[in-house]
């Protein structure tokens, strides 16, 4: 069972290297002297501009893939992912309130913390709304409701913000971007993302047991409410911090676990680390596509992931209607 991890890991490394080697498409082309003759400028660009972008691509992607796999495993719902269940949009709401009203200027960690608070609250609300009902549909509808609410409140907050640029920036918060991130962004988000991963990766065995049914899992000694709490905290911490620095990037958490499930023998436990790597690879690839295919101003990252993920989502829906819930 090692080879899928080797392939995924290798793919991630290759894409990481490609990301470091790729500049923005809109950069002045012809008349620019070769960077090899100016090692200091080369180092500045590599370390301060391209490295944070590639690092965040890996970490945000891993967060999204991992969270998607955990949510799908715990909720036993093939359509679960942070974007559809309102965790990303609630994180964006928290981050917007912290940034545009000056809180993060006073205290930089306020930005990821506000994203985390938003994300955890949004996810808890969705789970509460869908409690008791075993239907996949109820959970998705709860996600739709929370997304709508969070989106509306975010638009309102941006409209009320003092800066005249704020209203247009909703595009960043809804679609996400890794352009021109800095090592400071990496610094404030990484500790929280790592903490979230720590909580989420430990849930593997619990998810394996849950796949046999709630009763069976309980009889095996697993504390379901505690698993739920760790999941909400883990997703909240990692997705909250990721969205605070990169905006909300959709569909990665939906697509990656589905693609990788057959490769890990449908075991939820193994799917977690695999989805983390797969999410990192997919996000890096999307970020490369953004730079290769944009003309003029760069496309937002979420546009590319949606172009891949939305058709995939439709395919899942159609398959479910024909075959019944997987």
């Amino acid at each position: 069972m090692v080879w899928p991890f080797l392939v995924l890991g290798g793919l991630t490394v290759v894409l990481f290297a490609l990301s470091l080697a790729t500049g923005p498409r809109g950069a002045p082309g012809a008349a620019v002297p070769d960077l090899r003759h100016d090692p200091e400028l080369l180092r500045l660009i590599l370390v301060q501009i391209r490295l944070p972008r590639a690092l965040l691509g890996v970490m945000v992607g891993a967060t999204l893939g991992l969270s998607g796999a955990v949510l799908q495993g715990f909720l036993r719902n093939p359509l679960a992912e942070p974007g559809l269940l309102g965790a990303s949009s609630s994180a964006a709401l928290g981050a917007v309130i912290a940034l545009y009203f000056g809180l993060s200027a006073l205290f930089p960690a306020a930005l990821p913390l506000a994203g985390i608070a938003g994300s955890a609250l949004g996810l808890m609300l969705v789970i509460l709304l869908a409690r008791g009902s075993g239907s996949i549909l109820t959970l998705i509808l709860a996600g739709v409701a929370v997304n709508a609410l969070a989106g509306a409140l975010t638009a309102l907050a941006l409209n009320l913000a003092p800066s005249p640029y704020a209203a247009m920036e909703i595009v960043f918060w809804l679609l996400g971007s890794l352009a021109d991130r800095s090592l400071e962004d990496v610094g404030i988000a990484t500790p929280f993302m790592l903490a979230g991963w720590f909580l989420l990766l430990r849930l593997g065995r619990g998810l394996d047991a849950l796949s046999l049914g709630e009763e069976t899992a309980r009889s095996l000694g697993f504390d379901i409410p505690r698993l739920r709490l760790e999941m909400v905290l883990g997703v909240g911490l990692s997705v909250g911090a990721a969205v605070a620095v990169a905006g909300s990037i959709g569909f990665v958490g939906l697509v990656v676990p589905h693609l990788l499930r057959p490769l890990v023998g449908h075991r939820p436990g193994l799917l977690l680390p695999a989805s983390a790597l797969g999410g990192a690879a997919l996000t890096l690839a999307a970020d490369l596509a953004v730079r290769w295919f944009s003309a003029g101003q760069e496309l937002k990252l979420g546009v590319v992931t949606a172009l891949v993920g939305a058709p995939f989502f439709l395919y899942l829906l159609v398959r479910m209607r024909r075959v019944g819930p997987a």
Partner: protein
Amino acid sequence: MILGIWVLAGLPGIAGAAVTAPPRHIVSINLCTDALLLALVPRSRIAALSHLATDPRLSPVVALARGIPQVHGAAEEVLALDPDLVVAGRYTTRETVLLLRRLGIDVVELGLPTSMNDVRRQIREFAQWVGEPGRGERVVAALDARLSAAAPDPGTPRPLAAIYGPNGYTAGPRTLEGAVLRAAGYANLAGRAGIETWGWLPLEGLLRGRPQLLVFEETGHAPDLAHRVLAHPALVRVQRSIAVASVPGRLWSCAGPWVGEVVQRLARLRQEGPVQGRGR
């Protein structure tokens, strides 16, 4: 000039006759026309200015504008003042301008300047419209004096400069800001990158272009994402080794004599050493 004649010919009751009396009750509904009015016309002939005239971030004539009534630009407000001339910008709300003209009010429009010649032409044209041609010539002469003091020696290489603003936007040669840069003796990185008017220059592109002078706009701002790129560690680090200038936005938001001040300020950086032309 042609526009002015067209408008005069439309005035009821004076078809064919030249207007000799200058307008005595002028209303301005545009920031740039506010500023030119205050530069060229005695206060007693100004009936009202736009509400932007006292905005310290945008208006080059804040102190002069105090004490003069202001309007927000709605047709009703303007009508109530019974003006004999309304001055507006080419991008002032179309409906308002058309409505005012339909009601028989004389409205002239100022375009967007894209070169120093445009600036001179606008000052002269505006001076004609408001009946102060002599004063217009004096203002242009003063501006020209400042511009020639700032002009580079012919034949010397121009140092490369870049204007960088929120969201990484830069001003190309065919903008007022680009014209200021040119008059101050610099080459414009935006032009080299193929950006003629306004456009996005990615941070990496800015750094790789190796400008010798970075020009930022000085206006204070509320927190948002647009200004993040201006605080990016890479840009901060680069500023340790190249010259940086900060220009108050109000000095180049409109064509007028204040533009000479920015040109001189930027030229001084070149003439007194911090920016060295390095013959490219």
